[in-house]
């Protein structure tokens, strides 16, 4: 069985090409995020999985919801994309497509999303310092997202995609435990 994102990749790439051509990266990202959220809904998942509903009907259902949620958010290309996905029974892949699209967009815009997990909320100066340090390391514009998790104990964990920089007290304690336990 191929990975979900392996199947989603060609769709995301094609869509990115179209969006870039028409200079609509922003609107497309929003539409994808919204539709991903819709198909992730438990009730919607059941509808999508049902073999009783024809692909065309599925597309109509989804388009109706999207129109209601964000009136005028979808142009003809958008509608076509949803219909193509429905025809291939790939509507369930929308979350993966959205994620891959986001990654392609970030790469093109030379930006990166970095999540900082710390034990206490970070103040402005600290946030700026983290952002600067990460910009230097990744050589990209950094969008910083802050999360607070008391389990970190102290320090911070930085996360950008697969890369994790663990400077937390908890991580150090875990490493110490592994070292002593050997």
């Amino acid at each position, binding site marked *: 069985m191929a990975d979900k994102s392996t199947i989603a*990749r060609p769709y995301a790439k094609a869509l990115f090409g179209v969006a870039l051509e028409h200079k609509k990266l922003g609107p497309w990202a929003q539409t994808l995020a919204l539709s991903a959220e819709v198909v992730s809904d438990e009730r919607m998942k059941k509808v999508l999985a049902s073999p009783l509903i024809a692909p065309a009907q599925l597309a109509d259902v989804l388009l109706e919801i999207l129109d209601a949620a964000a009136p005028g958010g979808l142009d003809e290309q958008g509608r076509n994309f949803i219909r193509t996905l429905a025809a291939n029974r790939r509507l369930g892949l929308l979350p993966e497509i959205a994620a891959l699209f986001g990654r392609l967009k970030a790469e093109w815009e030379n930006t990166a999303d970095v999540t900082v997990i710390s034990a206490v909320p970070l103040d402005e100066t600290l946030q700026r310092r983290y952002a600067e340090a990460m910009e230097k390391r990744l050589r990209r514009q950094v969008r910083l997202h802050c999360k607070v998790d008391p389990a970190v104990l102290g320090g911070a964990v930085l*996360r950008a995609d697969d*890369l994790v920089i663990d400077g937390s007290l908890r991580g150090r304690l875990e490493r110490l435990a592994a070292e002593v336990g050997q």
Partner: protein
Amino acid sequence: MAIKASEISDLIKSRIEKFQSTTDARNVGTVITVTDGICRVHGLADARYGEMLEFPGNTFGLALNLEQDSVGSVVLGEYKHISEGSTVKTTGRILEVPVGRELLGRVVDSLGNPLDGKGPIKTTKTAPIERVAPGVMHRKSVSQPVQTGYKAIDSMVPIGRGQRELIIGDRQTGKTALAIDTIINQKGSGIKCIYVAIGQKQSSIANVVRKLEEHGAMDHTIVVAASASTPAAMQYIAPYAGCTMGEFFMDNGEDALIIYDDLTKQAWAYRQISLLLKRPPGREAYPGDVFYLHSRLLERSARVNEEYVEKTTQGKVKGKTGSLTGLPVIETQAGDVTAFVPTNVISITDGQIFLEGDLFNAGIRPAMNAGISVSRVGGAAQTDIIKKLGGGIRLALAQYRELAAFSQFASDLDAATRRQLELGVRVTEVMKQKQYAPMSVAEMALTLYAVNNGYMDKVDRKKVVDFEAALQAFARSNHAAALKAINDKPVLKEHEAALKKIIEDFVQTGAY
């Protein structure tokens, strides 16, 4: 093992002092599926092939499949605590095992952890389990012998240091017995031995270790055990781990001998891993790279020259060659050597010792088929005395086999044929040897000289074994000095008269 509380706190203290806390940046992924010890991990974009991956709970895995969106890895050890969503980190390291002299006398698992309850192994060095074999420029041809202590083998299929000689045969034909006797016979020869047990019963391994201890052979031996109950991944890496431990001695200008018992089971373990990783199955459901699996392992058995040793030891050891002799074992099914793995390993090695069930059951032990057992390079390493005396043995047996088949149809045979048949029978008898009774070069020479020169012609064929035993006992008690002289300088020319004298003395006085 009892440790005092104060020792423990000292140990912890030193660990904490040595502990370097650096903020590490690592590639992280999440487990998607866990099936039979195989983990599929999403992410880990920077993982390298064969890299160690760190799972939660101080468990490690090996990255074996690098795919577009995921990494397929085998977990080394227990995997019950790993679940979907567990985080996996790259370590940036290739799998390593401890190496060094401290391992001698110990029983370890595929990762070098002690299994014998004799406490921690205080090695200071580690080495990666996968290594490229020494290149052409670093090698030297085989020129020194490894004495197995078996007349039949040392005379007809001699093994040299650095050679790879396959031991092949059905189950219960004495493959392991041959290997163990070879280890026992290395006592005092300076050759360090590594016995890698793969997919065997724990009881068999315990038995081997006990026998080695009984014969005082554990002091120069490392046992790497991956029994049938250990995960397939551990069985797969066991030979590589053992080989790395052996290479340590080779690199330091010493001689080592490694026995892989057996590679069939290792191929099975690898087949299991490959199928679970969804690699396409080929012949006999083995993956496409099963030849490479064994060739890259056996290629690491080598004899290296003085420059290589000097280079690897940074000039500490000069003017010494190193060697790693490989004795892979392959188990055949109903004597089928044309199966996939046997043909592969036969083509990789420098010869094979073929053990047959029919011979074994007929009481000919070691059950070696002298016709199809060969050693392609060992002849150059054979001692002079055995080489000269053993030449006739091979020929006599070959002619005997030919005539034996032919003589079944003929009622009366001419004198020359009868003589040839009689000699063949005697040679076959004289080649029999008990387990755990390895012979020295001098003892072998004595027996070979006796049978070659017609001293056994008048002995009843059923009495040949007794005759030989009595002759050996006689020589040991009355001519110990002569035997020692032969062992010290095994050249036929110098000792022919002595051999003749021992046998003639025995024929006149000895009883059997």
